[in-house]
């Protein structure tokens, strides 16, 4: 009760401090003092504190199961374990927006502390732009999705959290992903401020690179966590489904990756200035679009909580204001910085980074069209369509091979002008890659040519980066690790998709199912009881062709609040493969529908993504780019 009030009023105080901050910073902007006024720091800290207090009081309401709070009532239940009571705070629309706000205010405060060496006017402008976004979100939360709505009379019991969200990975997935999404807001504000001050320069490049890297790392890990969750919880046995909601998080990742590479050019060569600004604007716009698409109920998925049209319209209007504001500023203030931007030879690091950008933009276009086209068709006609995975595979995979080759070559090139070194070694690697691929693939796939090209390219990148890792001094380790991780990722994904096998069948308790000298034996079921669900555990004995026995125990959970059935897959992971078994109950029948999959190299997909993020992390902690 009390927590509710405190939370609500401290949100309002947070909004007030936003207005106050704007007023003070505008006043401070024209003064000639050197540093930023101390009041601004204090206020920004105060604002952060208000939002933190508000967020904590929401968590407290969730822990105490205070059902006089509408959000708690809609998304919690007394029998839920404490951990999921807490994670339920951001497992819903209102709470997750409060988290957005928290990260927004946290980042601008960190920015103020971390940017002391930057020009004062630039810092104040960044703060102003960020406050515009923050005010927008404050208004959005207070007007359309207040997490502290009061319910009277107080209900005795809540409605419960969607059971498939009751999962440890999904408890940390939203905060991490948001750090990535919202991190792009700082890049957005900072690049607009830098444009108005004509401060897009090498120094700015070095300074903004840290922020780009930080949000890129969080976004990468956030997407990976979501993907891991989808893999074991949704029981489809894959890690990426080209679901609109996944695509929406992939799009800012693509632009952010492009931006990351561009800032390298900017900090070294003071070039590609407009491109950097455009990418910064696009990244944040795509993050906002993501929030809009997911929250408005246009896309149907787990992320779509109650859909309320006013929310969608609010975000849409806010989004348009931001886009017009940023484009306006860009065209009015941006001057191409010609004084020390020099042209570069066609064979140079700059070219290779540009090529990387072209590829990223192409991938972005494909994902964007695939995601938006069905919505577009729905708006202009009565037809309902969906775009499936074949669309993406067909358009993306052919471009992957050249992309990988450029990645292998490009990172070896020098700035301004370069020639290809170690030709013999590269040719040798190339031959090794092709023969190796051919030997591996000869007997396992029908689509030999297509896969040979792709996998050879991936192996080529794999060997070249591996060689760098072992032989070179550690002068560019972050990049090498990230690129090595990427080659590993592509290899794992490709072999995983070629070698996966799947059995789907309906089976009764006590029955056996035989295939290719292997056997699945459904021994028995056992019933279990937990505080908020009952479950059936199936015991499956799997004997493979080498008579090796694996026991898998998938589970069916019957949650009481809300009444939902979920299946928990049982997965046995080894370095070589994952054995994945999920069972479903077909209501009113004694048959259980089971799906058994062998997924080779599954763990390597996660390991490689971690490697890529570690590459980013190393770069973040490196003092300065070596000349």
């Amino acid at each position, binding site marked *: 009760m009390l927590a509710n009030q405190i939370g609500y009023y401290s949100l309002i105080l947070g909004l007030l401090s936003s207005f106050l901050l704007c007023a003070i910073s505008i006043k401070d902007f024209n003064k000639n003092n050197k540093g930023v006024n101390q009041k601004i720091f204090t206020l920004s800290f105060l604002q952060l504190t208000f939002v933190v207090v508000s967020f904590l009081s929401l968590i407290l309401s969730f822990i105490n199961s205070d059902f006089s709070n509408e959000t708690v009532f809609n998304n919690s239940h007394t029998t839920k374990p404490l951990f999921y009571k807490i994670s339920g705070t951001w497992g819903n629309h209102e709470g997750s927006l409060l988290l957005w706000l928290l990260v927004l205010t946290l980042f601008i405060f960190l920015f103020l502390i971390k940017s002391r060496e930057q020009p004062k006017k630039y810092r104040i402008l960044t703060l102003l732009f960020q406050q515009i976004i923050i005010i927008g979100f404050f208004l959005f939360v207070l007007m359309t999705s207040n997490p502290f709505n009061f319910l009277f009379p107080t209900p005795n019991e809540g409605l419960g959290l969607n059971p498939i969200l009751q999962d440890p990975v999904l408890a940390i997935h939203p905060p991490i992903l948001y750090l990535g999404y919202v991190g792009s807001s700082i890049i957005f504000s900072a690049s607009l401020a830098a444009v108005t001050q004509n401060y897009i320069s090498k120094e700015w490049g070095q300074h903004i690179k840290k922020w780009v890297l930080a949000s890129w790392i969080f976004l990468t890990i956030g997407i990976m966590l979501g993907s891991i969750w989808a893999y074991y919880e949704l029981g489809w046995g894959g890690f990426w489904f080209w679901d609109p909601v996944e695509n929406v998080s992939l799009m800012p990742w693509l632009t952010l990756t492009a931006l990351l590479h561009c800032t390298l050019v900017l900090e070294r060569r003071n070039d590609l200035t407009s491109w950097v600004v455009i990418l910064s604007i696009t990244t944040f716009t795509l993050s906002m679009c993501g929030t809009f698409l997911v929250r408005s109920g246009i896309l149907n998925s787990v992320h779509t909580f109650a859909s309320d049209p006013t929310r969608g319209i609010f975000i849409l209007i806010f989004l348009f204001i931001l886009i017009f504001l940023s484009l306006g500023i860009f065209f009015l203030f941006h001057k191409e910085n010609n004084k020390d931007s020099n042209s570069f030879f066609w064979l140079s690091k700059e070219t290779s980074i540009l090529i990387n950008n072209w590829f990223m933009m192409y991938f972005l276009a494909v994902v964007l*069209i695939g995601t938006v086209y069905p919505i577009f068709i729905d708006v202009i006609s009565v037809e309902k369509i969906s*775009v*499936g995975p*074949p669309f993406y595979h*067909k358009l993306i995979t052919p471009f992957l091979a050249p992309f990988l080759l450029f990645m292998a070559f490009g990172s070896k090139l020098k700035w301004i002008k370069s020639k290809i070194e170690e030709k013999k070694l590269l040719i040798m690697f190339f031959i090794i890659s092709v023969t190796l691929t051919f030997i591996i693939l000869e007997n396992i796939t029908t689509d030999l040519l297509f896969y040979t090209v792709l996998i050879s390219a991936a192996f080529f990148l794999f060997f070249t980066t591996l060689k760098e890792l072992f032989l070179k001094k550690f002068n560019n380790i972050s990049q090498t690790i990230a690129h090595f991780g990427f080659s590993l990722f592509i290899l794992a994904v490709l072999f995983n998709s070629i070698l996966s096998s799947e059995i789907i069948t*309906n089976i009764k308790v006590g029955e056996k199912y035989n295939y290719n000298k292997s056997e699945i034996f459904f021994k028995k079921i056992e019933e279990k009881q937990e505080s908020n669900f009952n479950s059936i555990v199936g015991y499956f004995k799997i004997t493979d062709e080498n008579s090796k026995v694996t026991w898998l125990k998938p589970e069916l959970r019957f949650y009481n609040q809300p009444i939902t*059935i979920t299946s928990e897959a049982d997965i046995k992971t080894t370095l070589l493969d994952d054995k994945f078994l999920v069972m479903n109950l077909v209501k009113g029948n004694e048959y259980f*529908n089971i799906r058994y999959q062998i997924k080779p190299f599954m763990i390597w997909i996660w390991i490689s993504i971690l490697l890529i993020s570690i590459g980013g992390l190393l770069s973040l902690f490196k003092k300065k780019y070596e000349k």
Partner: protein
Amino acid sequence: MYGKKVKLRFVFLVLILASVILIVFLVLQSLKENVVYFQSPTEIKSLVELDKKKIRVGGMVKEQSVFINSNEVNFIITDFKNEINVIYSGAVPNLFSEGKGVVAEGFLKDKNYFLATKILAKHDENYMPPEVKEAIGDK
């Protein structure tokens, strides 16, 4: 004559234009091939010609219509005006049950039989895909 720089820019521009056109063409082409249309049982009944392409059918699973054996699940999708028999072998989502909304993806055998290759998982007991809602007229 134009200078070398202008010439280079011209070549560059042509290259970019050509690749953009190529990409647009590629994307549109594969969109055409890979788009899956959604149809209700009533719409299928009124088809003049059977489509060979993959489609989605949505509606309610008719009560008492689910039959299951070791390799198939058979059921009827209804929009309360017309219905269609579905033959399916594959994984069944948890929320699939009689009297609930369903979306099946696959191919039409004829106007009365649908060979499903996938039944789409929905995550919430009360959630109804917008397509299904529309197909059964907000019932």
